């Protein structure tokens, strides 16, 4: 990565953390004229331990559920002072702070039309508090609050389609991305920031600690998610569903989802359950079909 590093090294994230890769990519694409408003979570804890900070841009953390509302206030204050031009405002949250507890604030920010890019780094559980399930946790995944057992398959509901919920707000820009396809992610960040009004990017960030994956395989897993069709990379512009397009097609034929699942400890309990693997493959196939992916 050739970049002016606005997210400094020396933070305390785990080895192979996908979310910190996303932050570096994000800031490299956004540049230094950026104000970041972040929710409580892993990325805040590892980057701001007083008196140190990894942030070389102005940064504020307030609470768990309100980065979108805080960013709304920053947007309004800059507008009130006639200082809004030439600056990016980015709200940042994990899946817990975005899919769940922060969904209302996000919806408010979107419908009010604030000139803010909200980036959700999705590692599919509450990692900061010890890997509890969130509504981003996929069907079958083992977490500390969705453990598999005699009466449990692991997480018993499929992942909430957050980016689609955001798309229903008809924002200026909405996309899904993966750190595995980082050029695609950075292109989307630039596109989102080039548009006036609210935008949203959901970036998929593997968590070696929570997913029980080797730390050197983060990028590989982030790519496999796309190549198996488990994660669909798409974008929609100007609130117009006719602009919706898949930005990264999986190879033909698509890789079976089992390839993605079997390298992750959180799905290990499914490996001797062919009926569950079949069910997950069917869920993936149905989603791919909805997006015109074979």
């Amino acid at each position, binding site marked *: 990565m050739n970049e002016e590093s606005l997210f400094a090294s020396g933070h305390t994230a785990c080895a192979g953390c996908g979310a910190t890769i996303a932050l570096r990519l994000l800031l490299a694409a956004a540049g*230094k*004229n*950026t*104000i970041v*408003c972040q929710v409580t979570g892993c990325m*805040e*804890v590892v980057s*701001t*331990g*007083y*008196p140190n*900070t990894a*942030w*070389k*841009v*102005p*940064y*504020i*953390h*307030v*609470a768990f*559920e*309100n980065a*979108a*509302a*805080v*960013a*709304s*206030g*920053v*947007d*309004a*204050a*800059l*507008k*009130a*002072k006639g200082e809004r031009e030439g*600056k990016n405002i980015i709200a940042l949250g994990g899946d817990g702070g975005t899919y769940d507890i922060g969904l*209302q*604030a996000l*919806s*408010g920010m979107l*419908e*009010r039309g604030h000139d803010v890019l909200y980036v959700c780094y999705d590692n599919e559980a509450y990692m900061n508090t010890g890997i509890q399930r969130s509504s981003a946790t996929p069907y079958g995944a083992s977490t500390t609050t969705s453990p598999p057992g005699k009466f449990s398959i692991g997480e018993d509901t499929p992942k909430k389609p957050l980016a689609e919920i955001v798309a229903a707000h008809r924002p200026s820009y909405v996309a899904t991305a993966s750190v595995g396809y980082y050029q695609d992610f950075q292109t989307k960040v630039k596109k989102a920031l080039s548009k006036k009004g609210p935008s949203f990017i959901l970036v998929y960030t593997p968590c070696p600690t929570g997913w029980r994956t080797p730390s050197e395989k983060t990028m590989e897993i982030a790519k496999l998610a796309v190549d198996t069709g488990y994660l669909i990379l798409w974008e929609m512009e100007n609130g117009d569903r006719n602009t919706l397009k898949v930005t990264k097609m999986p190879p033909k034929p698509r890789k079976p989802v089992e390839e993605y699942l079997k390298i992750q400890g959180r799905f290990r309990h499914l490996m001797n359950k062919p009926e569950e693997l079949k069910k997950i493959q069917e869920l993936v196939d149905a989603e791919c079909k909805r997006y015109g992916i074979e």
Partner: protein
Amino acid sequence: MAMKMVLRGNMATAYAAKLARVEVIPAYPITPSTLFPEKISEFVANGELKCQFIKCESEHSAMSACIGASATGARVATATSSQGLALMHEVVFIAAGLRLPIVMAIGNRALSAPINIWCDHQDTIAERDSGWLQFYAEKNQETLDLMLMAFKICEDHRVLLPGMVGMDAFVLTHTMECVDIPEQEEVDRFLPPYKPVYKLDVNNPMTFGAFSSPDNYMEFRYAVHMAMESAVKVIDEVFEEFEKKFGRNYQRVVPFMVEDAEVILVTIGSMTGTAREAVRLLRSKGKKVGLLKITTLRPFPKDLLKKYLKDAKVVVVLERNISLGFGGAVYPEIAAVFANAARRPKIYDFIIGLGGRDIVVEDIVKVYEIAMDALKAKKAEMVEWIGVRKDEIEVIK
């Protein structure tokens, strides 16, 4: 020339925000504070006030947006009540911890359950440990004046804390009174634009809201506490300057007929007017009664309470709040003022007017009589509820 208008308390605070040239107002409507965002949006709609009015989707987000805007260096205000303030609770503490001088008007309203939209002070009392300065108005003129002064006090670099101005639900929020509206030029001279020490600035990046360990958390909390202590002096200075410029006197604690008083009533908010009438009535019967009104509950005016109460035989605390399982919340604080004193008055606590129940002169006279009986009976302590029909309550024993 200053203008006089007949205004509801809520509207007077909206005029204060306009006169203060507030730059960002995030708000969410709640009874009985709705007139504030309504009036502000009207000011903005007709161009009387150039501010960013954020129509938030909840009080939690309204206070969060206040925090974002204030951290960006803007002058910020909002208003809420009761459940709205309770929903904000988490971020109310954070606003203080981040040292942001946000000013909030509160229509003091009872907390659920049962749901009730009328007056008591439970909502702001529940936030008294948050690091916000707390002012309470007795009448509508005070809502406007205290709101204006709150900006100046909170934004002072010796303080840098948020402040809330309480006004009793309906008694003040919705009741029309004649209010003197100061000239804009005079207000501008009194209240120059907010100059933040630190702000979110792309030319000077800083981290706000860092993660604090056991090694430094106490220092941060101590700094907020010391800022609260500094606020005492700043409040006195600002009250004095305000009187010079606008001719109206404010004090953190306002005495009434206390010089020779054996019994002193302590009140907060609009009940003070009723209590003053009761004092006059009792004085006419030769009773040595006085009254203290608390204007600033935070920082707690322990110096003035000590000064005015030390020679009294009995202090009667009238409270529109209840710390369930104990008594009123202000009572132990006043008692603490005398905890280590060689000579101390008897201090009795009365819970009164919860959920908007009327407080009339006869109630206050009754309070006086109960307190005198208790004194004669040498009661060490007392928490008494006034006007409660105890026979209607099924007590489980």
